């Protein structure tokens, strides 16, 4: 397959290697700098600022995961910060209890609140979560401000300082080390999570549920997971905040502050872990300047910085929706993933059905959209080892039939059986689990991940690592096995040499092939391909046909929707022809070609 020229080859190799090396060192150097900062002769003012930035970045980090990566929005993060802070203050002041217990309890309450809010809203379309978090932010603010035992609007005063092994951290240099250790640890864990099995699932959320569910991923569970993660990070920040300020009152946790956290994430770079730190720093530092400058300029006091923030927020979304960090990233060379999986053991594969065994029975399926019957009582069967083609003019209901089989759409009537078991009405991730995998007519992929990572997403069901293992990097062995499998599938369709490219940079043809590799990575017994040859050049089509024949030789069964007749006729064992939602006929390619009915459907009849 011909290699498309891309824009990687500009930087000379040694220089590139040097810059990549620098990039690898950037995190340890930055971490070291932040942790030794208090020991240097830096004025107290800057230590305090840096403390604020660390605390804010922790919250913004959660929003980067939530908003930038998963495509969900919360305006209520300040309320979660408040939960952490108030729990710390109440336990250590009123109950004179341990701050560590307060941390545990604060995080626990935040988790429960996030689970409740998420469970209610995350099954619905995306804008209900932000609306619910607005309500949550308001409710918590007014609750904190009116509860007698939380000191009403005055809050709780005199929070003790934090002590570790008898060492008093105070509110300045000592606490700085703890705040930044936690913030950096959180950033490391989040970066690890993003580069893992559950992380890829989370990154798939933004593109809509269909593809992720077809790969066996529960989108609801992963949305809930990120939302809870963001809440936990906010609650930890709040816990630290209580010991930093030594008083808590409702105002730092109001809805406006929640919106400001979102602003930090959007400004910094909503899909980059380090964007959270950049955004927090820029917002904190400019906020201080504006609070002094604007009232002087205007002549009266007031929170005029909100004007600037509001306008900047709109402008950023218009002109730099990816945030400031992208301007940094653009200058850094992208390092290819090191190939360290050669020695890994292959993933287990499922037992394949015997050739000729009845695999899929489609029995009178029907789909009605209001008054329109898109698919009208269509029946056919696929036996193991068959390649069946589904053809018909545009609008014949082929893709709808596909979606009925794979559970993307609900059946209006009829049944689908998989190896005898009824699967009609199951969600598509359950169907994927049984060994049916698919590609999409309009390619669905994660453009900002590499080809290899996109294909590894298909291996989701063959791994088991959860998010905690991923954050702690305990999942590396399994990751190696997943990547080895992904590379094997890419090699199978002739794309192994392009595995490190970003999927979004591929042309349409290779994108389709990548989808096939992703479907193969699920280890399917039946592969459903929706127009696999569309957008491919002649040579590529021949190569694809060879791959499909080879798959058939290995016992794979295939159902394909295709418009290219030459491709279909040369490849399939049997063909089902659809027109206007009904099945017109079924037969061998020769029978279909000879049929006057089919000819009439495609070319019209003479009158």
């Amino acid at each position: 397959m011909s290699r498309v020229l891309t824009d990687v080859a500009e930087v000379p190799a040694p220089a590139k290697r040097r810059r990549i090396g620098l990039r690898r060192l950037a995190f340890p150097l930055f971490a070291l700098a932040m942790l030794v900062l208090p020991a240097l002769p830096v004025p107290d003012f800057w230590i305090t600022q840096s403390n604020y930035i660390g605390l804010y970045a922790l919250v913004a980090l959660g929003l980067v995961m939530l908003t930038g990566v998963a495509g969900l929005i919360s305006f209520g993060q300040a309320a979660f910060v408040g939960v952490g802070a108030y729990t710390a203050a109440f336990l250590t002041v009123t109950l004179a209890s341990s701050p560590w217990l307060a941390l545990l309890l604060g995080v626990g309450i935040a988790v429960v609140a996030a689970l409740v809010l998420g469970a209610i809203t995350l099954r619905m379309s995306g804008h209900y979560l932000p609306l619910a978090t607005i309500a949550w932010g308001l409710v918590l603010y007014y609750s904190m401000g009116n509860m007698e035992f939380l000191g009403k609007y005055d809050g709780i005063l005199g929070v003790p300082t934090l002590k570790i092994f008898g060492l008093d951290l105070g509110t300045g240099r000592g606490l700085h080390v703890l705040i930044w250790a936690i913030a950096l640890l959180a950033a490391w864990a989040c970066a690890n999570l993003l580069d893992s099995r559950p992380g890829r699932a989370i990154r798939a959320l933004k593109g809509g549920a269909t593809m992720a569910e077809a790969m066996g991923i529960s989108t609801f569970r992963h949305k809930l997971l990120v939302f809870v993660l963001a809440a936990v990070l906010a609650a930890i920040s709040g816990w630290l905040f209580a010991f930093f300020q030594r008083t808590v009152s409702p105002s730092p946790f109001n809805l406006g502050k929640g919106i400001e956290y979102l602003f930090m994430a959007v400004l910094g770079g909503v899909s980059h872990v380090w964007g959270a730190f950049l955004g927090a720093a820029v917002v904190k530092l400019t906020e201080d300047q504006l609070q002094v400058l604007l009232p002087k300029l205007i002549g009266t006091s007031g929170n005029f910085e909100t004007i600037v923030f509001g306008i900047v927020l709109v402008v950023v979304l218009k002109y730099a929706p990816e945030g400031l960090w992208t301007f940094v990233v653009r200058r850094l060379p992208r390092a290819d993933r090191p190939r360290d999986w050669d020695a890994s053991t292959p993933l287990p594969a499922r037992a394949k059905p015997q050739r000729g065994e009845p695999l899929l029975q489609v029995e009178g399926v029907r789909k009605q959209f209001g008054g329109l019957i898109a698919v009208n009582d269509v029946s056919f069967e696929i036996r193991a080892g068959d390649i069946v083609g589904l053809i018909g003019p545009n609008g014949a209901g082929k893709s709808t039939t596909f979606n009925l089989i794979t559970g993307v759409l609900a059946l209006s009537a009829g049944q689908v059986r998989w190896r005898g078991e009824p699967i009609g009405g199951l969600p598509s991730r359950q169907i994927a689990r049984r060994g049916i995998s698919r590609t999409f007519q309009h390619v669905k992929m994660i453009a900002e991940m590499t080809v290899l990572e996109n294909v590894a997403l298909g291996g989701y069901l063959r791994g088991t690592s959860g998010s905690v293992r991923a954050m702690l990097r305990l999942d590396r062995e399994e990751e190696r096995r997943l990547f080895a499998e992904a590379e094997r599938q890419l090699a199978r369709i002739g794309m192994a040499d392009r595995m490190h490219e970003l999927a979004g940079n591929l042309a349409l043809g290779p994108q389709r092939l990548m989808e096939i590799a992703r479907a193969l990575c699920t280890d399917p017994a039946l592969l459903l391909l929706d127009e696999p040859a569309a957008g491919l050049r002649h040579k590529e089509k021949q190569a694809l046909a060879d791959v499909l024949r080879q798959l058939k030789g290995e016992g794979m069964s295939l159902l394909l929707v295709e418009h290219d007749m030459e491709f279909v006729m040369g490849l399939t064992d049997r063909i089902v022809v659809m027109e206007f939602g009904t099945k017109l006929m079924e037969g061998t390619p020769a029978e279909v070609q000879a049929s006057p009915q089919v000819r009439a459907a495609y070319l019209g009849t003479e009158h």
Partner: protein
Amino acid sequence: MDLSIASILALDGLTNGAVYALLALATVLVFAVTRVIFIPQGEFVAFGALTLALFQTGQVPGTVWFLLALAAAAALSDLVNGWRHRLPARRIGLQVLRTLAWPVLASAVAIWAAPRGLPLVAQALLTMALVTPFGSLIYRLAYESLADASVLVLLIVSVGVHFALVGLGLFFFGAEGFRNPSFWDERFSAGALTLSGQTVIIFFASLALIVLLYLFFERTLTGKALRATAVNRAGARLMGISSSGAGRLAFTMAALIGALSGLLIGPTTTIFYDSGFLIGLKGFVAAVFAGLASYPMALVGALGVGLLESFGSFWASAFKEVIVFSSILPVLLWRSLTDPHSEDQ
């Protein structure tokens, strides 16, 4: 609680509910046509009430300068746009003129009228004329070029607009709160119930506006065009309906409804530059009750919110906001159970 207290609370709740209903309708209207979740809806309420209050004191309200500033920004964007698309100077000039005409005219009249102590009704009309153009100006400046962005991006933009408007509201109106005089000081007694003239006006004005909106959407071509855009933007565009024109119109109507709500609610409570947010959000809770889609449900929801608020403040006055905004959670739960399949947008 006896029956008379209950009926007083109910009347109170329904009165506020009628205003929330207007805001809920505006929210649903804007969302349906433009997919913008318009958080700053409440700002128009505060602007309306404060503008009238400043007219009452005989000053030129800050709204005038605020409006002129926005209009100037929009005119500037006209110029830049025209220059970038290399349009003929005449067309650019016309465009700028169209942008500036209403704001400048309304401002001029306002500056002339302010010290003259016109009758309350005239000042109210002038207030509406000043606040209504905010709608389309805000749409043009913040949303128009992002019309095809996702609902969530538009929502963040809304929050940015809210931030900016509240800050600018503080700048142009100051931190002082105002309570407007009633439009009608008559009082009617029926047993324990006292019906103030303002209450009657609120009910009638809300009802009249709802009827007008109904007629507009059912009987006029423009109204039908807006509905078509709400159902399918691309389809409407193919039928020759400009989706940005529809957006401007929807926002203009939202601003009009907001200003009217401000006039109605002004005499019943003290309004500050930032009071609009909470009032608007209560309309919002009602709109969410309606799934941001159904006008009659929004009306029902709004009356429900008003009742909840008045009874809530009787039982636990400190927690009335907590009660009102918590009620969104069972509503969302109910929606997610009855309509769980709206996952893809």
